[in-house]
């Protein structure tokens, strides 16, 4: 069959398909499904944002009405009552430190494992990637004992250490995948130029695996930013409280002042939403890369 004939036959099939009643029903079903998921993803957030600008009276009277006067003072109250500023700062410090440390050590390890052959190399690779599947929440007792014993309970350092560690398997897995794809010739050229092990890492391999490192870093940062279980377990005082832990206390802090609590929730998710709007491609790549073959 010539190409034209194929195209004509394909077009014929397409046209036939497009007018049949079955395909119209399927198309309606398809769009209903797609739009339902769309609404499902955004509607609760939008509803909460609008509710956060109402008075409690208005919310009680009708959950869907628009506010008569936009109550921006709910936000002032949310910020002052919850102490959200401090918690944000704690979250930023902890997440940035844990990400920087994690990326530095995992890219070093990935360099060793992915570009040098030695005994136990394969075993290490398998161990690291199976670490991804360990249900971390089950390790509360040993983490609690370990962190208390080294005197880091209720300290930011404790969370930084735990977050650096729990991201080790996934970051190593991601960065390893990228480092394997850097051509051997580039490194060999550097060897000829007299660059030693360390120099090759910092001047050749690290810069060339940049996209993998950024991807792993994105994943790691978001994991730290959103982590709750260990923030809850390993801290007790307000001065080291992260933003996720803060959300837990909103119900106590605001009790029946729902609208201010909603405002506090909106403020707490605003950084994530902003980051997503600005860097969505990077974030999607970062969060999914761990599940894509490296």
């Amino acid at each position, binding site marked *: 069959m010539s190409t034209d004939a*194929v195209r004509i036959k*394909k077009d014929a*099939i397409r046209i036939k398909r497009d007018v049949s009643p079955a395909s119209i029903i399927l198309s309606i079903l398809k769009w209903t*499904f*797609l739009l339902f*998921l*769309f609404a*499902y*993803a955004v509607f*609760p*957030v939008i*509803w909460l944002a609008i509710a956060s600008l109402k008075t409690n009276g208005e919310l009680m009277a009708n*959950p869907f009405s628009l506010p008569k006067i936009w109550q921006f003072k709910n936000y002032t109250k949310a910020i002052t009552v919850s102490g959200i500023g401090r918690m944000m700062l704690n979250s930023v410090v902890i997440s940035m430190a844990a990400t920087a440390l994690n990326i530095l*050590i995992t890219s*070093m*390890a990935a*360099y*060793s494992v992915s570009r*040098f052959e030695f005994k136990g190399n394969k075993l290490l690779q398998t161990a*690291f*990637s199976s*670490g*991804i*599947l*360990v*249900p971390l929440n*089950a*390790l*509360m*007792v*040993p*983490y609690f*004992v370990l962190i208390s014993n080294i005197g880091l309970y209720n300290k930011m350092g404790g969370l930084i250490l735990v977050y650096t*560690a729990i991201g*080790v*398997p996934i970051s190593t897995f991601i960065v390893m995948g990228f480092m394997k794809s850097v051509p051997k010739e580039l490194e060999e050229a550097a060897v000829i130029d007299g660059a*030693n*092990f*360390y120099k090759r890492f910092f001047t050749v391999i690290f810069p060339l695996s940049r996209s993998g490192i950024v991807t792993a870093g994105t994943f790691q940062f978001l994991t730290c930013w*959103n982590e*709750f*279980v260990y923030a809850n377990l390993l801290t007790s005082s307000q001065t080291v409280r992260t933003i*996720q832990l803060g959300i*837990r206390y*909103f119900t106590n802090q605001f009790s029946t002042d*729902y609208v201010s609590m*909603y405002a506090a*929730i909106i403020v*707490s*998710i605003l950084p*994530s939403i902003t980051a*997503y709007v600005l860097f*969505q491609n990077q974030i*999607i790549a970062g*969060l*999914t890369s761990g*599940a*894509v*073959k*490296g």
Partner: protein
Amino acid sequence: MNVKRDEKIGVILFLLPVLILFIAFFVYPVIYLVIMSFNKWSGFDAPVFTGLTNYIKIFTDKVFIRSITNNIIWALVAGFVQVPLAVLTAILLSYKPRGWKIFRTVYFFPQVISGVALATLWSAVYNAQYGMLNGILRILGLGHLEKNWLGSLDTAFPALLIYWVFYVGYFMVIILADIQSIPEDYYEAADIDGASRIRQSISITVPLAKTSIVTCMLLAMINGMRQFEQVYMLTNGGPSNRTSVMVLYLYKEMQNYAYGTSSAAAVVLICVGTIVILTLRNTIGRPNY
């Protein structure tokens, strides 16, 4: 590249920090849990060896049995409802309908919000007095169905289970990327044979995207086994422990200074998780890990 003598030190030095953390936070904790699960320990005095007492205690505890059951239901719903929904969505978007990129971006969006924040958001949706769900029911004239969704015995667990099922964005993106790497030729050949799109999806798309689908099922089910935040925030296991899960159980045992019992529950959780992984691997197919 073979390791030259002067590089040996470098390789070891570069591996060391990760190796130490991996042993301290992944290998040692599991061993620790196994040992501690045979002991009675309140966290203050020395642990006392008690054999299988902790295991007998948790397996005769209705709350723990309920927790395991809930976790298994949770994992099954995640693997066999949420992931298939994600596959369906990915297939629909792979034909690039109008605005597919916007759909992709929006579907993924809930993924960047933390579990705690989402749970708090949904507690507002389910709220008995001013919640969104009851509000919608009233508008639809279904006011008689209004409920205290998280407070009633019969709706609390379904309410916990259902809200995240439709957040398919994460798995959808992974599967969609895989589908988009399938060569066009297969579909063109199937077009010529007159195979419908549904037929093409079943015979071409799903088999060729199998690895990513299995990986997603694995991640989804593991997620179901280690649930904590949502339950902790929305119901704290109530009403009358109806919505308890294993991690919540071991957390509460820990708060009661029953570290041994908590460890036993954790060991069971790790075993059940491993069984899930191995079963999936040996029946449906190999994931990426």
